[in-house]
C-alpha cells in the first residue's frame, strides 16, 4: 500500500508545525545519518528507532509516530541530542511527542511507562515530594503485578532505605496549585 503523501500532508496539516512549536526543533534538518539510532541505548527495543521517527515526522506521518512504542521507550538519556550532527534535540522532540500522544489518548503502546508517570506525579501532587514506596507499589497495583520488585523493595526497607510513610511538605498547597494551573492553562491552549 503506497503512502499517499498528498493525502497525508492534507490530513496532518500543521502537525509538523506543532512539533516544531512544542520542541523548538526543526526535524526537517535531519539528514538521516542514523547516528541517533546508533547510540540509542533503547533503540534495539523500539518499533521505530529515532532515525525513523525523524523520517516519519518529515513526512508528517503522525499516526505512525504517535502510536509508536519508541516515544515511550525513550529513556531521555539525550545521547542522541548530544551527538546529533545537525544539532537537533531529538530527546526534546521525543518529550514533545509523548506529551502530544498522551493528550490525544494514544498511550496504548507502552501503557506501563505512562502509568508510572501518572503515579509518580500523583505522589508529587499529593505530598510535594515523591514517596518512592508508594510509587513503586502504586504502579505495580495498576499494572496488575503486585509483587514485582518486591525483593528489592524489601531489601531497601530492611536496609532502612525505604520510608513507609510519605513526608508531606508545608508548601503542598503551592504544588497542588502549580498542577491545577498548568492543567488549566494547557487545556485553554
Amino acid at each position, binding site marked *: 500500500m503506497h503512502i499517499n503523501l498528498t493525502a497525508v500532508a492534507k490530513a496532518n496539516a500543521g502537525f509538523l508545525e506543532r512539533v516544531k512549536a512544542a520542541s523548538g526543533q526543526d526535524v526537517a534538518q535531519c539528514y538521516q545519518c542514523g547516528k541517533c539510532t546508533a547510540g540509542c541505548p*533503547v533503540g534495539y527495543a523500539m518499533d521505530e528507532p529515532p532515525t525513523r521517527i525523524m523520517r516519519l515526522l518529515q513526512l508528517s506521518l503522525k499516526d505512525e509516530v504517535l502510536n509508536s512504542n519508541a516515544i515511550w521507550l525513550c529513556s531521555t538519556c539525550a545521547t542522541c541530542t548530544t551527538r546529533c550532527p545537525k544539532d537537533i534535540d531529538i530527546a526534546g522532540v521525543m518529550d514533545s511527542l509523548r506529551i502530544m500522544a498522551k493528550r490525544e489518548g494514544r498511550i496504548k503502546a507502552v501503557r506501563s511507562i505512562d502509568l508510572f508517570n501518572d503515579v509518580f506525579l500523583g505522589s*508529587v501532587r499529593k505530598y510535594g515530594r515523591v514517596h518512592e514506596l508508594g510509587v513503586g507499589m502504586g504502579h505495580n497495583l495498576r499494572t496488575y503485578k503486585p509483587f514485582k520488585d518486591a525483593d528489592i523493595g524489601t531489601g531497601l526497607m530492611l536496609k532502612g532505605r525505604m520510608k513507609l510513610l510519605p513526608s508531606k511538605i508545608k508548601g503542598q498547597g503551592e504544588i497542588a496549585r502549580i498542577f491545577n494551573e498548568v492543567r488549566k492553562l494547557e487545556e485553554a491552549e
Partner: protein
Amino acid sequence: MKYAYYPGCSLHATAREYDQSTREVCSALGIELIEIPDWSCCGATSAHSTSHLLSVALPARNLTLAGKMGLDIAVPCAACYQRLRYAQIELDQNEGVREKVAAVTGTVYENKADVKSLLEVVASLDPEYLKSKIVRPLDGLKAVCYYGCLLVRPPRVTGFDDPEDPQTMDNLMRACGAEALDWGYKTECCGASMGISNEAITLKLVRDILQVAEKAGADCLVAACPLCQSNLDSRQTHINRAFGTGFKMPVLYFTQLIGLALGIEPARLGLKSHFVATAGIVKFAT
C-alpha cells in the same frame, strides 16, 4: 563555601547513604550545606514527559526558595540537577515560559541562585587542599567512574564536563589515591527511569554496564546519582537470574569513597546498606 542544599526525594529515602555521606564529606571539607527549607520534587522524567510547563514550574519553586537564601544550589542527584539546570536555562532564556511559570506558581522567578551538581562543587576545591585532607588513601583500588546521562547531557544544559569522556569524578578518585580506570561505558544510559515500568530493558542496560566494568578490571563502580546507584546496585540479583551471570560489583557513591579516604567511619557513610557488600572496598582505605 556555603551552598543551598537540594537533596531531592531519593536522598530522603532510597539514597539515604548518599545524603549521609554527602553531609559527612562536605562537613569534613569545610563545605557548608544548608538544606532549602520545604523544598519540593523537581518533577523528574515524569514531569517533562507529561508537560513542558510543569517540568519548568516544579523546579522553579525550588530555584526561587534558594534565591531567597542568597546561595548557589548544590544538587547531589543527577536527575534533579539536570531538571533544575534545564528549568533555570528555560526561565532565563525563554520569556514566554517565564511568564507562564509566573502565572502557575504565583511567584515571579528571579535568577539569583546558580545550580551546581555536588560533584562539581567538590571538584571545585583546590586539589592540593583535598589531598592534604586525605588520611587513608585508597591505594590499589581500581575504580570505574560512572557518570550516566544526566550529569553530562545534554551539554547545552549541564556543561561542566565533557559529555563523551568526563573526568571530574576520575580526578577526585585519583586525588583519593584510587586508580580511575579508563572504560567505555562512563556515560551509557543505565535505564533507571524505566526500572519500575519496563524492567527488561533496564536489566539489559545494567548488565552491559557491569560487563564492561568487569572487563576493565574494576573493583567497584563509582556513581554520582542516586537513581543510577540504586539501579546498578539493587538489580544485580535480577540480572544474574535473567542472564545467568554472577555479578557482585559494589556500586559506591563518590562521596562514600572520598569519605573513606578522609578517614570517616564506614558506618557514618551508609556503607552497610548496599545490596552488594562494600566490605571489600572499605579494606582499601588504609
